[in-house]
């Protein structure tokens, strides 16, 4: 990412405002730095040359006091706004990342899995704070104070200005040179360093396992040896990495020293007056200060910059097209899969492959097939989450036939109840989890059927028991009961049940059979992913789903 990525300004409103404010404060700071230097020189010079008395410098001292107060206020304001803007801009980005991430994950477009997105949305983006609070202000000061101070020096003494102007470009030049010369070296070292660091952690993480096997003693020496190797590798990297810092320090300090000596000698020959010389002396370090600060905070900002870059990459990943047409009434409409196939991203597998099926209102349709055949993916296609990569899905109503992807998803989802294998409970009460607007009789009946009534009876607060984030506090089987109850008490015409697994804790076969029977009696359509014969027998029709593994391309044929 560039030092100031335009995407950051585009995506985060608060970042935009903050950059404007910081630039403004940077301009004010530049003016104050210059005024402070000039006032100090004007107050000090006549005192040194004994041309003035204490009383003569009172106005300058008063002016200096005002400048100090103003600078103090500017810094306070800047710092206050920096934190404020950082948290708000991070929140803005987080919301976008989560929203887009949810859409990507739901449509299975996210190859990295949800873990990466969660880390990015939480810890990753938090790392932007040092970037906003420390790095960005210095970057903008480098764009304001440095040129302003240099311009004033030029007006005062062009020789000193030339000295600075010549050394100033050397700073980025040398840092770039050092960077280029050391890059390959540093990268190799860094890889070794990361690897060694990881191995130590791997041993620590595996300690319980080693203990369980009675083999925990020996690796202590290895931890020590790895630690030493890690240190040597790290120091090798640092020796190189700190070079750029040294060049920066060396160039900036040495230039200030050269300016001071040059000004001093021209004073001796009467080519300058003391006031000018002092002003130049005070201003010269100010030219370099923001550059040095940018260098100092650069490393602190890299994590945040990296996080922002991954956030933008995630945000720029395209989502499947969303239709706009209102979905037809699923109590009447027929859903037809025609040779539907979904290519697994990054793998030479199509699952399901060539799937033909018809979902007829009021019927119970079972999907069968071995693990990995694409049953759950077929469900995701039916739900309109995943677009098929081959074939098409049509929704037919009154002789009109519309592709599923042309329908407005929300109008489709409103008519569907879905019980996945691993149900998720959003935080709230048990009552919220099964759906709030339901008559108590209907709720109790459904709960009796799914066995949720026992869970509720045992829960400390009954229906008002709070279930935590992600349904923590409820076992998988209990969550399945909640989800099944929710499907039962709802009025969605289409119910999709992903068969619970064979875990002891899971809802039993009889419960699922009872639920299917109840749904059928209410005239609702059921699509059931099933393994077991009893469940398959309960269906009106069974569709077998199968996958196709493509032979690897170009391995033998390319030769």
């Amino acid at each position, binding site marked *: 990412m560039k030092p100031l990525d335009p995407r950051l300004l585009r995506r985060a409103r608060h970042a935009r405002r903050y950059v404007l404010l910081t630039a403004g404060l940077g301009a004010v700071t530049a003016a104050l730095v210059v005024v402070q230097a000039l006032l100090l020189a004007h107050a000090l010079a006549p005192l040194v040359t004994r041309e003035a008395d*204490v009383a003569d410098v009172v106005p300058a001292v008063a002016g200096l006091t005002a400048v100090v107060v103003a600078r*103090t206020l500017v810094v306070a304001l800047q710092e206050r706004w920096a934190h404020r803007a950082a948290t708000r801009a991070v929140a803005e980005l*987080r919301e976008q990342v989560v929203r887009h991430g949810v859409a990507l994950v739901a449509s299975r477009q996210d190859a990295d899995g949800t873990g990466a997105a969660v880390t990015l949305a939480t810890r990753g983006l938090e790392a932007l704070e040092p970037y906003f609070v420390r790095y960005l202000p210095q970057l903008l000061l480098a764009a304001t104070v440095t040129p302003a101070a240099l311009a004033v020096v030029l007006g005062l003494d062009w020789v000193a200005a030339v000295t600075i102007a010549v050394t100033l470009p050397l700073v980025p030049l040398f840092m770039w040179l050092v960077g280029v010369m050391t890059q390959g070296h540093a990268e190799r070292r860094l890889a070794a360093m990361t690897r060694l660091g990881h191995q130590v952690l791997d041993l*620590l993480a595996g300690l319980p396992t080693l203990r369980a096997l*009675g083999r925990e003693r020996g690796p202590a020496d290895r931890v020590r040896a790895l630690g030493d190797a890690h240190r040597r590798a790290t120091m090798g990297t640092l020796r190189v990495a700190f070079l750029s810092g040294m060049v920066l320090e060396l160039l900036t300090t040495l230039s200030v*020293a050269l300016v001071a000596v040059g000004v001093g000698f021209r004073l001796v020959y009467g080519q300058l007056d003391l006031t000018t010389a002092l002003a130049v002396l005070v201003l010269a370090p100010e030219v370099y200060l923001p550059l040095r600060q940018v260098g100092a905070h650069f490393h602190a900002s890299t994590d945040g910059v990296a996080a922002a870059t991954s956030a933008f990459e995630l945000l720029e990943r395209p989502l499947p097209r969303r239709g706009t047409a209102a979905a037809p009434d699923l109590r009447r409409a027929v859903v037809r899969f025609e040779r539907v196939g979904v290519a697994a991203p990054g793998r030479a597998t199509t699952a399901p492959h060539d799937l033909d099926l018809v979902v007829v209102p009021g019927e119970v349709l079972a999907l069968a097939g071995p693990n990995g055949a694409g049953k759950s993916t077929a469900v995701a296609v039916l739900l309109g*989450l995943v677009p098929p990569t081959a074939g098409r899905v049509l929704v037919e109503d009154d002789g009109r036939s519309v592709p599923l992807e042309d329908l407005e998803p929300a109008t489709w989802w409103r008519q569907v109840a879905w019980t996945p294998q691993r149900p998720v409970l*959003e935080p709230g009460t048990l009552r919220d989890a099964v759906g709030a607007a339901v008559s108590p009789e209907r709720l109790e009946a459904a709960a009796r059927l799914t066995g949720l009534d026992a869970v509720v009876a045992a829960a*400390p607060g009954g229906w008002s028991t709070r279930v935590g984030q992600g349904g923590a506090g409820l076992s998988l*089987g209990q969550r399945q009961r909640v989800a099944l109850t929710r499907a039962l008490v709802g009025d969605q015409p289409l119910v999709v049940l992903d068969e619970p697994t064979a875990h002891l804790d899971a809802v039993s076969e009889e419960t699922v059979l009872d639920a299917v029977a109840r749904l059928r009696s209410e005239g609702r359509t059921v699509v059931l992913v099933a393994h077991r014969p009893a469940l398959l027998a309960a269906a009106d029709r069974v569709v077998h789903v199968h996958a196709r593994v493509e032979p690897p391309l170009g391995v033998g044929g390319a030769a």
Partner: protein
Amino acid sequence: MTPARRAVPAGAPAASERTGRAARLRRDPLVRAVRLLQVRPGRVAAALLAGAGSLGSAVALAAVSAWLIARASQMPPVMHLTVAAVAVRMFGVSRGLLRYVERLVSHDVALRGMATLRTTLYRRLSEGDGAALVQVRRGDLLARVGADVDAIGDVVVRGLLPAGVAVAVGAGSVALLAAFLPAAGAALAASLVVAGLVAPWLAARGARRAEERSAASRAEVAATAATLLDGAAVLTVAGRVDELVDRLRDSDARTAHAADDGARPASVAAALQPAATGLAVLAALVLGAQATAAGTLAPVELAVVVLTPLAAFEAVALLPAAALQVLRSRAAAERVMALLDPATAVDGGVPPGPAVRGAGPDAHGPVPERRSVAGSAGGSPSAPGRDRSVADARRAPQLVARGADVGWPSGPTLVGGLDLEVVPGRSVAVVGPSGLGKTTLLLTLAGLLRPHAGRVTLDGVDVADLGRAEAARSVVVVPEDAHVFDTTVLENLRVARGDVTAAEATSTLAAVGLGAWLDALPDGLATVLGADATRVSGGERRRLLLARALVSRAPLLLLDEPTEHVDAGGDDLMTALLDGSLAPGRGVLVVTHRTGGLDAADEVIALARTGSVSRARPRQRAGTARDRDTAQAARPAGPTA
């Protein structure tokens, strides 16, 4: 510090207060953790010297160039300025060079310390008793330990060293000014204290306050984001995404509010820097002007007195960040010490005697693999060990539980009054739904935890009293979360026994159904299983762990959910485990929540929620809905379709 100070009676001698404070300092987790780094004073002094030299150069540069210019304005012969001119150039160079030296030396000190601390941590955790292991098992604690150790090391580089340098440079600058004009020196000292003590204190306070106030909403943000992304598809179909995003926004707004609160002291702290610098310069100017008028200060010296303070604040400007680093490092030190303390405090569980002896049997020959975990795990590569361990396999150890109450230390009893026997040639299956303490039971049988009551004995001796290596010679346990090391397939098997040959490894992997998987690996047995074993699926991981248990020499195997995530052939694998065809002549105990393949077991023990509640669980412990779930009391074992 105030409460303890108040506790000292009014008339108490100052000495006792001092010793009290010293003791408190010794107890401070950060102080204790830093001590464990075992940094060498010589190196620290070198880093300090270089750091003070670097920032001192900056101050000297300002002072000498001020003198040079003021003196030059009097137009003396150029000769009189040459020394100053050379000095200015020299300070211009030494600043950067010494800074480089300081950074290298200090990082070296910190890295050495971190290596020492990691080794200490490893040693103490591996030698301590099960209580420490209990914590280690939970969550990603160990994953965090790496970062925590780094944070403790960082306190040297970013916390203590900058503080030392600031004190040295500050004192030097004050002394320099005081030599010319004592009053200006005093003014500089006062300003430095404001910028170097008050500002860091405020910064740390602000950070702590923001952290405290925003902790809850931050956790909420993380949890909501995780809920949304984990349940993305379900929530999307249920139409509840917007609702949860609103909740996320609310929590974020609360976090921002708390952060704002904390930023107030931080902004004051930041503003104190220019304020203190300005104050010092102004004071020097006014005091210096009067002294010059009075004739007590030479005009040239006035320039030095006024311009030096501008550079003197660079050292203290680093201190607010240093204070924050100390804060961060202390939190890390608290976590690390919490991990270390139980490991060292309760060491009674493992007498050192048998453990030392135990290093022998599993020893192995020279290590062919470069990346060896177990390769170095065995200790001495003594050949006789092999003979003895073959004899071990022929032994028939008996693992017996009698009336054992099982649970985490200081936790509730999860399984009560357990009686069972594991002997070579016999298989036992323990079934029950998740969360009933099956894993705990397994760890207790292996001697990694002590039973709350009753006994678990190996050949008549309490298994928890045996050394780890001694117990592991007879009983090997594979917990569900056993670690797959970031090394080759072969080395991962050698974790259990150092001299596993390639042929043995191949045949064992084939026996557990990983033959095809192994064939598909790019480098066969030499394939490195990446970080977090990304090349391994859940089911493959289970089988690999099973293979690891099988190559060990222990006659008794305790296995936690060996067929979890094993889709096809899971029941067959369970049958092979239990009917003795996979591990002939060994005793096998399996805990599982699956029911397939169990009819091959010699004995099936069913744990039921209701049963364990009524037998062993104190009523008041059963607080959550999950604990009291009675809906699906496990049916007594036996094959279910």
